[in-house]
Every structure is written in C-alpha cells, then in structure tokens.
C-alpha cells in the first residue's frame, strides 16, 4: 500500500482567506495521487511591486515516517561486495592544438671533416691526404677485419633472400563482403581570402604525387577585382602550401598535364586564351596564345593529343569552336572546327562546346559535349569541314558537363549533365542505352573507373560524390558520400583507380580513397559487363527500329500524297522551312477536308492522334 501522506497546507484543505491572498478552494485530488501544487491569487494593482521579504519559521510540508513493516519486503544481504580504490581521480580532456605548419627543406651537404690544412677542392691535397691515411697500419688491420665481416653479410644476402614474399599469388579471398566506403585522405584549401571554384583537376602523369588544380569563378560577372588569378599545383604530402603557383593573365578554367612530359602543363583561360607552363621554369606561362585567334569564351575543355612531337593539344569553348594548337607556336591555332551541326560552319548556329573527349587508341575520332545537351562525334581526318561532324546524340536537357569513354569498352561512353548521367552506345543514336534516375541536384562532373569497367563516379551540386556500380545496382549509387556542404564542381580519378580528387565551389579539393571492393576487378566482370552493354544496345536498337516502323506507317497512312520521306529539317534555312511548313499545312488541310467528306468522325480522330508529324510543326491541328 502506498505510504500515507499527511497533507499540509498545500493539500486539499484550504485555510481561511487572508485578504485576498491564499490558496483558492480546490477540489481534493483523486485518491492515490500526490499533488504538490501551491495556487495563489494576486490583485492586479499589486503586480510589479518590489519584493518584501520576511522571515518565517520553518514549516514541515511533508513528513514521511519510516514504516518498519516495509522491512519485511526486503532480504538482508551479507556479505556485500563493494569496490573501492585508493587512487586519485582522473579525468580525460581533449584539446585540439593549432595546426602546426611544417615544411620540408633539403640541406646541401658539402664535403666536410677535412683537417684544416687540406683544401677539399684541391685534388692534389686530398689525394695526398688519402694516401697518407692508407699507409697507416691501423687502417690496414681495420679494413681487413671489416672486409671479412662485410663479405659474410654479402654472402648471406646472396645465399637466401630472407625477405622473399612466399604467398604473393594468393589474393585476399573475398572482398565482396565489405560494404563500399570512401575515406578522406587530405583536404587542400584555396589559400586566398576570396575563394574561387576549383574547376578542373589534373593528376601528375608519373606516379600521381602532384595534383594541378585550376581555380576560377564561373559565375557570370561575379569575379571581383581582388580575386587572385593564381592556380596551384599541390604536392599530396603538403596540404598547407601549394608546390607551385601558376600565374596566368586571366583565371584558368581548365588545366592539363602533358601525359608524355610531366613538366609541361597547358591551361585554358577564362578569357579564351591558351597558356602553357613548364614547371622547371616557374609560375609564369612560357607562352600565351594571341587574343585575336583564341576563343571568345572561357575554355572549358582542353586535352592533349597523341602525336610524335607530344606538343599537340586541342581546346573547346562555349563560343562554338574547337581549336587545335601546337604549343611550340601558340600565336595561332593549327586548325579550327565550328560546332555547327547543320555542317555549314556558320558560327552563329554553332553549339557551345563544354566537354571534350579523346581516346588515344582512336586518334582520328573525338567527341564534344555541348551546352545544348547534344554530343557531337567528329572525325578529325575528314577532308571537308562538313564531313568532320559525323553524328550527334541528343538526350540531355541541359549542358553536358562531362563526357568519357569507357576505358574497357570504347564504344560506350558516359555523359553527365542536367540531373542524370547517361551511358550511350555509339551505335544507337536516338537515345542512351542506360541512364540513372533523375536526382534532386544537378550533376556536375563524372568519370569512369580505370580498373572496373562498370564503376563510375559522379559529383552533384549538393556536395555529394556518388559511386555507381552498374552491374550491381542501377537505380541507386552503390556509395554516396557527402564530401562537403558546398557544391562539387569537378572530379578526377587517379590512374590507379583508388584515389579521387573532388573540387568544390569554395576551392576546397578533397582527396578520397575508395575501398578496395570498388577498385579491384571482380572475377568474370568483363564478360558480364560485355553482356550487359550488348544487351542494352540491342534493346535500344529494337526500340529504334520499332519507332521508325511506326513513324513510317503513320506517314504513309496519313499523307498518301507525299512521295518521299524528307530528311529532318535541320539542314534547311528558316525561310525554306517556313515555306515548306506552310505548303504542307495547306495540303494537309485540303486532304482532311476531303476525308471529312468521306468519313467524318474517323478522320477527326486520326488527325488528333497523329504522332508522326515531321519536325518543324509547331501547329496543333
């Protein structure tokens, strides 16, 4: 039974009223509850008065007496284990010290230790000194003794290699159990006060110990006067200070190491010029292209070509041109190509180029991703400029920010733009063969893994890096890592497939390492991947064929008078197009009026549902 409480003045009974103050009468609380509530009433005129303190003798409010009968509910315990320790109390604290800036410097060791009378630079004196030492008896004994010791160890080394790897071939059994993960290794921040976006990253070709990052501000007219134009080459060991500072005349939008010569870098500037650097010569560009012959817009894409001299590169910009350069002579480009898909070379109709793609194994072909969402494949060796543009692939709603061929299946390539990433096959021009779902944020960059043919990486505007394993899961990325809070703009995978650098809007480049499951080739992966790509390509081809059939059927059914199937309108000028559209419009109207007379209801339904109209129709019938 619950202990009984002697209810004092805070209970249910109320003392008589004392001039307006005092607990109001309240109904008694329900049995079994213990309310300790004090209600009082105060006159409005008395609000805000200063406190008047007075002494009052102590009052017992609650008095719970011990109830010996309760003891019967408990059992006495004897003996009791109590732990005590006679030691001083310790508490753990953590303190983060200020970042300690370290710098590695080399010391040049000059010859030393020579006695005062010998000048180390004088050959004669040193030789004489040496001869003198060699004549010493102690020297002879020591050498003989040490010689035998040394020989013993050398023979040991030659007899057996004690550090030999015995079980090299046995790989670690199953890595499949480990969930994919990515670890941040290092973070490189833009040392300037005004932060710029890291727009392009390029790894050093030998050994990838250095990372070149191009910084610029891509927001329209947002660059202030104080914004520095510098771009940096970082050494992975030293995130505090850049290894080399590159000083162009305008901020760099793209930057690439020459894969053949690791000292040469070429960069595309915000103002359209191309510059190249030699790291042995310092931070100033060795040569800059002339403004008149360069691009008119920021140079978004820059790739080195395979050539005998190793000095050829080509660049693309949103002004609609692709220019080829030889860095030995940057005064004018060696070749130009206008991205006009009507194949007339008219600059006004050209599509702005953003992403470039070039595979050294197919040196005559290259691809350009444009601002309008179209990928253009081009053939460099075509004789006329019109033939240079081979085909187009459209399917993105917005600019294509990244374009990459699969290193294992060169016929398939990845495009990243708007809210999706799409995989295409060169054979199916109508649409992509595989695509990711529409995300909540824009996708800004992407690349294939160099080790596994089905893995690719994408970055998004919400600061996440997604790793997709298309064989395993197609509806969601296998791994989604939130790298930082600001948008990520660029991404570059190191050649070993393990390290990724991501550049963000505030110029922070984060270096991540992916777990081994994502960068080791699984058994049978190539065959399964081949099967997957072929299957999807076949599916697209079948769909394409069906679409074509349907369109053909509709056309022959509806417009019985049209003789031939005209090629899509993109090759006509606007005036011709308008005339043709008008003519067709009137023809159709007349045909319908005639059909109406024949079978009224059926023709109206047909007209309303005609999906196979040639492009260029903006009229709803």
């Amino acid at each position, binding site marked *: 039974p619950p202990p009984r409480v002697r209810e004092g003045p805070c209970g249910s009974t109320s003392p008589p009223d004392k001039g307006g103050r005092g607990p109001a009468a309240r109904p008694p609380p329900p049995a079994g509850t213990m309310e300790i509530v004090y209600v009082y009433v105060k006159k409005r005129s008395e609000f805000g008065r200063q406190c008047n303190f007075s002494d009052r003798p102590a009052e017992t409010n609650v008095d719970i007496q011990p109830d010996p009968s309760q003891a019967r509910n408990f059992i006495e315990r004897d003996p009791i284990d109590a732990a005590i320790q006679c030691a001083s109390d310790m508490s753990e604290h953590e303190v983060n010290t200020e970042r300690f800036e370290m710098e590695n410097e080399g010391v040049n060791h000059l010859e030393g*230790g*020579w006695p005062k009378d010998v000048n180390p630079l004088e050959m004669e004196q040193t030789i004489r000194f040496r001869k003198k030492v*060699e004549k010493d008896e102690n020297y*002879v004994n020591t*050498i003989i003794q040490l*010689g035998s010791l040394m*020989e013993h*160890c050398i023979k040991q*080394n*030659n007899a057996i290699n004690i550090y030999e790897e015995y079980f090299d071939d046995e790989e670690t059994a199953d890595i499949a159990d480990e969930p994919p993960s990515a670890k941040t290794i290092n973070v490189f921040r833009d040392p300037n006060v005004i932060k710029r976006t890291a727009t392009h990253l390029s790894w050093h070709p030998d050994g990838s110990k250095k990372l070149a990052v191009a910084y610029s501000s891509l927001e329209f007219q947002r660059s202030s006067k104080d914004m520095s134009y510098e771009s940096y080459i970082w050494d992975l060991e030293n995130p505090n200070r850049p290894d080399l500072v590159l000083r162009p005349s305008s901020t760099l939008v793209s930057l690439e190491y020459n894969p053949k010569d690791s000292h040469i870098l070429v960069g595309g500037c915000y103002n359209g010029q191309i510059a190249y650097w030699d790291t042995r010569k310092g931070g100033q560009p060795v040569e800059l292209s002339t403004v008149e012959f360069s691009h008119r817009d920021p140079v978004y894409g820059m790739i080195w070509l395979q050539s005998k001299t190793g000095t050829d590169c080509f660049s693309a910009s949103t002004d609609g041109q692709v220019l080829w350069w030889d860095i030995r002579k940057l005064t004018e480009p060696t070749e130009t190509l206008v991205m006009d898909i009507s194949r007339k070379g008219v600059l006004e109709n050209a599509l702005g180029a953003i992403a470039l793609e070039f595979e050294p194994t197919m040196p005559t072909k290259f691809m350009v991703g444009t601002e309008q969402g179209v990928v253009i494949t081009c053939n460099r060796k075509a004789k006329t400029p019109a033939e240079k543009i081979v085909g187009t692939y459209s399917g993105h709603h917005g600019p294509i920010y990244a374009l990459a061929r699969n290193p294992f299946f060169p016929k398939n390539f990845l495009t990243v733009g708007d809210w999706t990433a799409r995989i295409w096959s060169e054979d199916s021009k109508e649409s992509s063969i595989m695509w990711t779902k529409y995300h909540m944020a824009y996708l800004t960059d992407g690349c294939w893994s160099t080790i596994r043919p089905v893995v690719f990486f994408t970055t998004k505007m919400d600061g996440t890096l997604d790793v997709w394993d298309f064989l395993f899961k197609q509806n969601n990325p296998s791994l989604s890592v939130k790298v930082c809070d600001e948008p990520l703009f660029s991404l570059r995978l190191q050649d070993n497939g393990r390290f990724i650098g991501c550049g963000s809007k505030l110029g922070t480049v984060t270096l991540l390492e992916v777990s081994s499951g994502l960068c080791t080739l699984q058994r049978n992966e190539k065959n399964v991947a081949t099967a997957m790509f072929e299957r999807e390509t076949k599916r697209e081809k079948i769909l394409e064929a069906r679409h074509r059939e349907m369109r053909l059927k509709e056309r022959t059914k509806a417009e019985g008078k049209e003789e031939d199937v005209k090629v899509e309108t993109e090759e006509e000028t606007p005036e011709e197009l308008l005339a043709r559209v008008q003519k067709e419009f009137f023809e159709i109207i007349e045909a319908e009026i005639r059909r109406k007379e024949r079978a009224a209801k059926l023709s109206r339904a047909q007209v309303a549902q005609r999906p196979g109209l040639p492009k260029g129709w903006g009229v709803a019938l």
Partner: protein
Amino acid sequence: MAEVEETLKRIQAHKGVIGTIVVNAEGIPIRTTLDNSTTVQYAGLLHQLTMKARSTVRDIDPQNDLTFLRIRSKKHEIMVAPGNL
C-alpha cells in the same frame, strides 16, 4: 697494402654489390668506387647515422656495441660495417 686492395676488390666483385665506400672517423671518404657527389652524400649521411646507431646500442646496454648496420629500402640495401673508433 696489397691485402687492402685485394679485400676491397673481392667485396666489389660479389654479385649484387653496386659500390663500395671506405670512410674514416671524420667522415671523409678514403676509397670509393662510386662517383664523387654520390660518395660525398653517402659518406656524410651514413657516418652520422652509424654514430647515432652505435650510441643508441650503447645507451641501452653499455657492454654492447654495434657490429653491423643494414638499411633495407625498396630499391637497395645499404650495409655498413662500423670500425672500432
């Protein structure tokens, strides 16, 4: 004198031996089969390292002494036989 020559030649002739340097107590290279700049670099660096290694061994146990020092790296192995000085 001839024995010294013979010893050094024998050491150099073994399989896998890239070069031999003889350094005196002050760190001056007396005999070498490598080029000058490399010799100077090795002599200076290894001399200091050997002294440090010897003092370490001695600090731990004064009765002990360093007999041999091998530095195994990815590319080579440097073997140092310290004299009694």
